[in-house]
């Protein structure tokens, strides 16, 4: 589809991620063993044949920039389109960071002005889902909408105050849009995926800038909802936003569910990610793995149960890992017990340690030990 270009908003951070966000933007969070958050939106773009995609980064973008070092992993082109990374830079005209999502787009308005595709698909980098954006675009055109917002049903396990809550009329036109309310009067949440005509977006952004308003949701969607036709596209397949520790943990654990795993890992289309050239996982004597995901490069000598081992994890002898998420490149010494925890990436956990979180209060383990030649 050469009808749309893509914008991925991946600059965000959230204090709901607690210590996990010290290291990286949410879009760079590792997910489901072998992926990162942003892989899902980029794979959706690529699988929807959106060939020109810009990723806007700002907060702690080092991990993200490393991950996005080539457009090849998601099969974007290099000449007809490609993957662009827009991190704030100072220019004679502007010395601000991105002051909001609308400002981020405004600071890169050339990207929109120099494209010729009639539509723009805007999506955030922290959603875990599969979606053919062409379906949304078809809907957008059939409704003669100005803006289409993709909405999903709120997961009853989740907290509405993390989301934009929308109300629609019988035609699915959005009548109310409330950002992060305390109590929600609707079960429809905005997924942060929008379709809009490119020229209209340029016009709205330029107007906002004149009025010194910088947020796409607050200053454009909510402000214009009565004079512009803003429609809701209801998505009924799996969607999850990972920007809190609870939802991050839960989303990962969802992949232990066979239907969800089958949907993402085996059904067309595939989700792509950067390839790390790691050897297959290795199970030595003493390994005892139950109901868990294990990624490439892992070496297991102990017990692992209801857990997710990300890439390159070493589990020592007589360890017990239970209901936990061990992020990339972690070495766990012998006889250590870890339960209801998330272990931060690239760490070395000493032998004989005991870390136990609670089911409703996941512990984040960070030891920050140096690893010597092991």
């Amino acid at each position: 589809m050469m009808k749309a270009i893509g914008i991925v908003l991946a600059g965000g951070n959230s204090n709901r991620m607690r210590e996990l966000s010290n290291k990286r933007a949410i879009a760079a969070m590792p997910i489901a063993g072998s992926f990162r958050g942003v892989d899902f939106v980029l794979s959706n773009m690529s699988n929807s044949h959106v060939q020109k995609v810009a990723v806007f980064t700002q907060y702690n973008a080092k991990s993200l920039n490393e991950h996005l070092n080539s457009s090849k992993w998601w099969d974007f082109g290099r000449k007809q389109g490609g993957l662009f990374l827009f991190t704030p830079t100072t220019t004679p005209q502007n010395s601000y960071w991105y002051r909001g999502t609308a400002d981020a787009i405004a600071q890169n308005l050339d990207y929109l002005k120099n494209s010729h595709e009639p539509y723009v698909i805007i999506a955030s980098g922290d959603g875990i889902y599969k979606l053919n954006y062409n379906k949304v675009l078809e809907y957008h055109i059939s409704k003669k909408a100005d803006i289409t917002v993709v909405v999903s049903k709120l997961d009853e396990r989740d907290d509405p105050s993390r989301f934009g809550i929308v109300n629609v009329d019988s035609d699915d036109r959005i009548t109310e849009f409330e950002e992060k309310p305390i109590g929600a009067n609707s079960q429809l949440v905005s997924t942060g995926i929008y379709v809009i005509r490119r020229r209209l977006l340029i016009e709205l952004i330029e107007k906002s800038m004149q009025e010194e308003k910088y947020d796409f949701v607050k200053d454009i969607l909510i402000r214009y909802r009565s004079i512009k036709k803003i429609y809701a596209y209801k998505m009924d397949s799996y969607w999850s936003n990972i920007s809190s520790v609870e939802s991050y943990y839960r989303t990962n654990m969802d992949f232990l569910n066979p239907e969800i795993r089958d949907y993402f890992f085996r059904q067309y289309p595939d989700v792509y990610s950067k390839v790390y050239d790691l050897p297959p996982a290795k199970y030595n004597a003493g390994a005892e793995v139950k109901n868990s995901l294990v990624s490439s490069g892992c070496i297991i000598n102990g017990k692992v149960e209801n857990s997710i081992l990300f890439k390159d994890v070493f589990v020592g002898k007589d360890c017990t890992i239970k209901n936990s998420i061990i992020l990339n490149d972690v070495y766990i010494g012998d006889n250590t017990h870890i339960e209801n925890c998330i272990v931060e990436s690239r760490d070395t956990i000493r032998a004989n340690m005991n870390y136990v979180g609670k089911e409703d209060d996941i512990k984040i383990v960070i030891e920050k030990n140096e690893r010597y030649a092991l």
Partner: protein
Amino acid sequence: MIKKEMIAMLLAGGQGSRLGVLTADVAKPAVAFGGKYRIIDFPLSNCINSGVDTVGVLTQYQPLRLNTHIGIGIPWDLDRNVGGVSVLPPYEKSTSSEWYTGTANAIYQNLKFMEYYNPDYVLILGGDHIYKMDYEVVLDYHKANKADITLATLPVPLEEASRFGVVITDENKQILEFEEKPEKPRSNLASMGIYIFSWPVLRDALIKLKDQPACDFGKHIIPYCHEKGSRIFAYEFNGYWKDVGTLGSYWEANMELIDLIPVFNLYEEFWKIYTHTEKIPPQYVAESALIDKAIIGEASEIYGEVHNSVIGAGVVIKPGAVVRDSIIMNDVVIGANTVVDKSIIAENTVIGDGCKLGVGEEAPNKVKPDVYAFGLVTIGGDSVIPDGVTIGKNTAISGVTESSDYPNNELAAGETLIKVGDR
């Protein structure tokens, strides 16, 4: 101006007939290895790790899998503006058109390819060994000796040397004599089939011997150069080197990877082996699974038992199944309650429920006793095995088989069952 100091020519056209049904549809260099890799990944990774960024891969026998695997060389960083990887099949010429008739003939037919890069040295490689070697070190050795040709050699136990082509050298490792499979070997340095040629020497020899039928490096080019007085040196390699040319050695090399600290370690940061990663998701190990000592590839789902085995990517091992001492390649399905002992099962094969593979006493294979030996069950790619059959040792199966192909639901030890035709 284009200039590459050393380019590599990788001979990947051979069938590898001693691997039996494993190479029915794929060339030997494309055979899977170690749960993730293909044999050609080892020389290709050695090239890029040694700084050789221009590689011609000569293909002939069943090249399709190899072609998709290599692609434009992205996994090995061999997608380059100048150089990179080029797949070189035989081609039609205005006067004569011929297949590659021998190793040197194949290289001769690509003389123009080599000339384009204006090399000083050409590295000749095979695609059928598992090893890590720094070709740059060999090149330094070649230069230091002012050699015309350098052969990589491997010290082997003297009692086994009669299986190899050995070289007899002086104290400076300059080669005085060659002996092909000598009865009473006078040296234990076996040729590894890896050569560095100074380009003018190679070019001259290829042109001089262009009318030699089935022109071969070991049989013709090296003896020709030796006779006319070229300086030929032996480089002694002391690392891990494994020929995977027979089912037995192929099985053994895979099994060695499972050792606690394998001699050939794929987990070291240094000298990484690169491959085309076909699947990204992690593997799932179910509540009902039991795994001890195994390596398992991406996106596999294990519900049964795995003991001492190498499992590829995208494999499903159903509940109640037991896999022991076996090599299971990508996307194979092992049915529920099926027991697999000492088997090699190639890609995309489906084994039914309640089967027993590799049971009973050994009997020599009736068709190819030298190929299907070692007590193995060998099943080719894209095969289907129906539910409830029992399969003995030293057997080979290929194709979509049905219950009617198994009298008494059994394939006795030493039998071969090959069903051909489009699938």
